[in-house]
């Protein structure tokens, strides 16, 4: 059976609903040896800032039960070098390219978005609002509906590209943030980013991560991610991109059935670098086994 796998996010058509998540797929080239990158629905690159960033000192990662903590600290080459050195390769792959961006002030976000909008080869912008606003005493943009709306509005007006806003799960009510960024013009939301966590070395009595805390990802967080995606799907009318702990096609299908228009595969890429295409194949098989001819007929069909 021939299954239609295409989905639409902010006017951009993905050949299938499977993207790779920011920070877990480098700039794409790192995976060239392990899978046919052109088969991906989209690739989301490592978060980009105005200037290059060195990130946090090591140790940066530690394993946890069915997950990992990372405190990479958004190390990246900066938007200029990205456009010069990384984008040329990405233009050749034949998948949608999503640039994930972040900043420490609204102006930072605006400048990065503006720069990317003028660079051929970027199809969508994903705005990571889990970062602290240094001006506002470090409160994360993403944990305050007003700030989240502000940054969304600013990026939208600076950018010629459709904008996905990526939400943090470390909040009391994620639907409030989602509604606020929708009202501010976001074309889609993606969720979840990592949950903040910590781990301690009981021999040395120090945190395992030099940064003390880090972001929890992997299957451990999937139930939380799925709940938040489902809540958000019920709260907004823009597309929702679901992620958090997706390890196989069955996990991805849970998010799609809950109403996510697309999914992102994150930490799973570390476990098996060709897993994203296995997930695409698995979704396609699920649909064809059940005679569902179009992925859009599955999305949001949860019965409650």
């Amino acid at each position: 059976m021939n299954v239609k796998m295409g989905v639409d996010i902010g006017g951009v058509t993905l050949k299938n609903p499977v993207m790779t998540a920011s920070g877990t797929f480098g700039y794409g080239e790192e995976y060239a040896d392990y899978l046919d990158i052109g088969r991906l629905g989209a690739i989301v690159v490592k978060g980009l800032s105005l200037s290059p960033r060195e990130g946090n000192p090591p140790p940066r990662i530690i394993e946890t039960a069915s997950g990992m903590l990372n405190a990479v600290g958004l190390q990246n080459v900066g938007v200029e070098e990205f456009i010069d050195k990384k984008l040329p390769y990405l233009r050749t792959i034949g998948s949608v390219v999503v640039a994930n961006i972040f900043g420490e002030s609204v102006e930072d976000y605006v400048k990065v978005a503006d720069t990317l909008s003028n660079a051929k080869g970027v199809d969508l912008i994903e705005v990571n609002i889990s970062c602290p606003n240094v001006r506002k005493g470090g409160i994360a943009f993403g944990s305050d509906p007003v700030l989240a709306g502000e940054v969304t509005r600013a990026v939208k007006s600076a950018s010629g590209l459709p904008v996905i806003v990526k939400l943090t799960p470390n909040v009391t009510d994620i639907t409030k943030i989602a509604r606020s960024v929708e009202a501010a013009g976001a074309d889609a939301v993606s969720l979840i980013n990592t949950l903040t966590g910590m781990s301690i070395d009981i021999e040395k009595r120090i945190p395992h991560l030099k940064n003390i805390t880090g972001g929890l990802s992997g299957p451990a967080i999937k139930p939380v991610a799925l709940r938040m995606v489902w809540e958000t799907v019920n709260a907004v009318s823009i597309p929702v991109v679901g992620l958090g702990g997706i390890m196989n096609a069955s996990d991805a299908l849970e998010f799609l059935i809950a109403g996510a228009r697309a999914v992102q595969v994150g930490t799973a890429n570390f476990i098996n670098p060709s897993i994203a295409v296995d997930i695409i194949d698995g979704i396609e098989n699920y649909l064809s086994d059940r005679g569902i001819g179009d992925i859009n007929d599955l999305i949001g069909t949860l019965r409650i």
Partner: protein
Amino acid sequence: MKPETCAKIFSQRETVKGHFLMIVKAPVSFREAIPGQFIMVRLEGGNSPFLSRPFSIYSIYSRGDDTFVEIFYKVVGKGTDAFSRLREGASLDILGPLGRGFDVPASCRKVALVAGGIGVAPLSFLAQRCGEDIPGTEVICYLGAGSSEALAGLDRLEKICSTVEISTDDGSRGYHGSVTGLLKRDMDLYADDDTRIYSCGPRPMLRGLQELLKGRPPGTCQVSLEERMACGIGACLGCVARIRSDGEKGGMVRVCKEGPVFDIDRVEFGE
């Protein structure tokens, strides 16, 4: 394409207490492996442990059409503990060979290997290849361990090296003290241009070695670093070490991709 492979354990045995030699049947692509390169290993199925674990290649050999990769490891936590319980025929997911190995100039006439504990693994492979690829080269290995019962990998080294010098922290065998102390004694043997030093071991040992080699020309010594890894292929930025710029790459550098082997003078060990 060199995707992750499901590999079967061909054999496994405990050599020295707590140290296991595992032989895995690997894809033919492993024949191109270079000493200092590593593989990522994971239990098939399940999430305990969750991430793959990096191990140096201890040796590669072929029998008929089959290629085998050896890893030599010490049980230190739950991953290595789980591996040590596996028997012949069990399946592992493996990825590799990965990273940048040791550079041995063809002009090299004398090689000193400085191994601390299980750090012997990549160096043993290097000794073997030096013997095969640059015949006539003298390979001297300095092997350090806590005590004589913990001298892992000694048997093989004795077969493939010209000389093996031993140190133990407790003096139960060989030189009484650290392996860098032992090397210091012999330092004037390694003054020439056609000499190279390679090392792998605990951080404090490498830091001591860096100290010892201060003033030597860049390129004299390479070390293999160990950092916690998630992806092993340069994507997660989890495994960085602070490396001094060589003009091109510097700062927070990925051990899995630009390393694990670095010139010792470029490594910033910190406090």
